[in-house]
């Protein structure tokens, strides 16, 4: 399934860790359950502040953030993650209840990798998460190869 390509990263770094944040308990559980079923580790936040704290503390592989959270919203969390060095490169997928492209554009310009409009299919969300992880892995690949080569050189 979709989770299979991640096996590679799993091997390297355990299972991918996904931060999920939504103020709606049911949706939070829906996303958590669906991702867990596909083999992801998940950590959950109920608001933006908690999400931001967990992001810096646990450094997840990807963050799924609801835009419409009270207080610090998903766009705000994305902005702060981007301005903080350890969380700077963690890919973000936004969940938005608004079909208004203006809101989506705001989130994307804040630095989100992708967005999903509510109501969404959990399967579709999972495939987006997997795609974002793959893209991130591809970006890291040259660096990883470099270090492998460097290590090989050091050994050799």
């Amino acid at each position, binding site marked *: 399934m979709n989770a299979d390509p991640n096996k590679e990263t799993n091997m390297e770094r355990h299972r991918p860790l996904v931060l999920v944040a939504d103020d*709606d308990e*049911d*949706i939070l559980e*829906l996303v958590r*359950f*669906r991702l867990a079923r596909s083999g992801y580790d998940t950590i959950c936040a109920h608001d933006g502040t908690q999400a931001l704290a967990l992001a810096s503390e646990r450094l997840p592989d990807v963050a799924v953030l609801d835009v*419409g959270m009270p207080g610090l919203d998903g766009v705000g969390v994305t902005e702060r993650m981007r301005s903080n060095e350890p969380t700077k490169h963690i890919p973000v997928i936004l969940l938005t*209840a*608004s*079909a*208004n*492209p*203006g809101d989506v554009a705001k989130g994307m310009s804040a630095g989100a990798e992708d967005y999903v409009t*509510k*109501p*969404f*299919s*959990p*399967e579709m969300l999972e495939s987006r998460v997997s795609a974002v992880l793959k893209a991130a892995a591809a970006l890291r690949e040259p660096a990883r190869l470099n270090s492998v080569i460097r290590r090989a050189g050091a050994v050799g």
Partner: protein
Amino acid sequence: MKRVSHVYAAVGIGLTVAYFTAAAGNIDARAVIYQAMALSAGITVLAGIWVHRPSNRAPWYLFAGGLLLWSAGDGYWNSYQWFLGKEAPYPSPADVFYLAAYPLLAAGVLTLMRGWGRAQLRDILDAAIVSVSAAVVIWVLLIGPLARGSTLSALGTGASVGTTVGDVLLLAALAQLAMRRRKSNLALRWIGLSIGLTLVSDYVYAYLNLNSTYTSGMLIDAGWLVGYTLFGAAALHPSMKSIGALPAAAPTLSRLRLAGLGVVLLAPPVALMVQSTESAPTDTLEIGIGATLTVLLVAWRVWLLSRERERAQAELTRQNDRLLELDRMKDELIALVSHELRTPLTSIVGYLELIAEGGGELSAEQRKHLAVAERNAQRLIHLVSDLLLAAQVRAGRLSLQTDELNVAALAEESVASAKPLAQERDIRLSYRSRGDARLVADSNRLAQVIDNLLSNALKFTPEGGSVDVSVRAELGSIVIEVSDTGIGIAEAEQSKLFTPFFRADSAVEHSIAGTGLGLSIVKGIVEAHGGTITLSSRVPDGSTFRVDLPTAGISHAELEYAA
């Protein structure tokens, strides 16, 4: 009682005719007819009060009093004929009775309006303008010449002037009645006509009396006779009861009223001109006073009018603002509700999906039930996004994400996904395209346009029919046409078809599902792209929707519209 009233009127008219025909040469017979009609009018009004018991009795008692006074005057006059075989001198005690009746009748007319609420200043002014102008004419024609001396004695002059003044009083009261905007009824119309006829006869009589040329039996007697008859008939008619409760008529400044006031305004200058062409001395001062009064009244009236207009304008603006506010609130509500619905819907469809793909413990029946729940949840999602889109279209906030795309490819996709439904319903679905149909547009929205038109066409086409979709490039535009052999749209409904929530009668009749949002959204999307949508349809042959999209791309104006 209606019939009694009509019979009374008919007998009165009959007697009036007899007065001039059968009794033409017979002074006594005429006197009898006249006396009988005058007396019966007063008594009949009293009878009317007794029969109908109107809540407002004062006017009718006043009318009865006035009529009985006139009747007494007639009695004195006629006694001369009967007992002395000659006409009464002028003036005589009869004129005292006649004179005394005027204030009563005028008061009767004014009290008749009790129950109509307070008179509007504008109506009082209109009546005053009419009265003043009429007074000027009467002065010039009657009072002036009388005052300057006629063949009458001093007493006769006094009586004539008095009667004329009484007439002016009655006319002023009648003008007030006429200018009040009320829906009329028969009794009221008869009273008005009766007083009008009496006034005309009075004026002609006074004019003739200037030179003592009146003799009994002249045609002007008809005015008084019919006047008496109508008073009695009005009092007998059941509608006399409801005069106090007559509904107000629309307070419009009718053209007729304006024209009437205009004519009335001409009275002083015309009187002046008429007098200056004669050798008679001119009543310059009196006409001047009348004209000044009229001008002041008219100026007041115009000031009132302009103030009324300003108020109406302000009220209209206020109402308009309120409507706009309500409309905006409605759009906001729709946007808010559809937004708020998305979160619970996410849970519903999400968990349904989890259950469905979760494992094999479900029976076939359970799966079927899940599919029903899923299908209906999807329907709800569809409705919610349509509502949101419609609200955006209405608010002019539909935003587009444009890119270069091929309309033909979009249409082909739509047709392909509609194929199963068409086959299921045994509808022949065809597609063709011609030319280069590339365009800068919002592909999701444009796909929605084609999907909506196509799904409508399929919905409204009976089994065995056909639906055609075509895309072709024309000079400067790309044309999408969706035609069907469906039930067609009635001409009367075609103009309303694109308004949100409108549903054609035929759709309701054939119980075809829908919200009435689809076409309004289609129109909004097409217009946001700078395009147009037109419809040609005939019942029962089918409909063709044609969308024209300009290839020049989205102009500046539309971009602003989109923003």
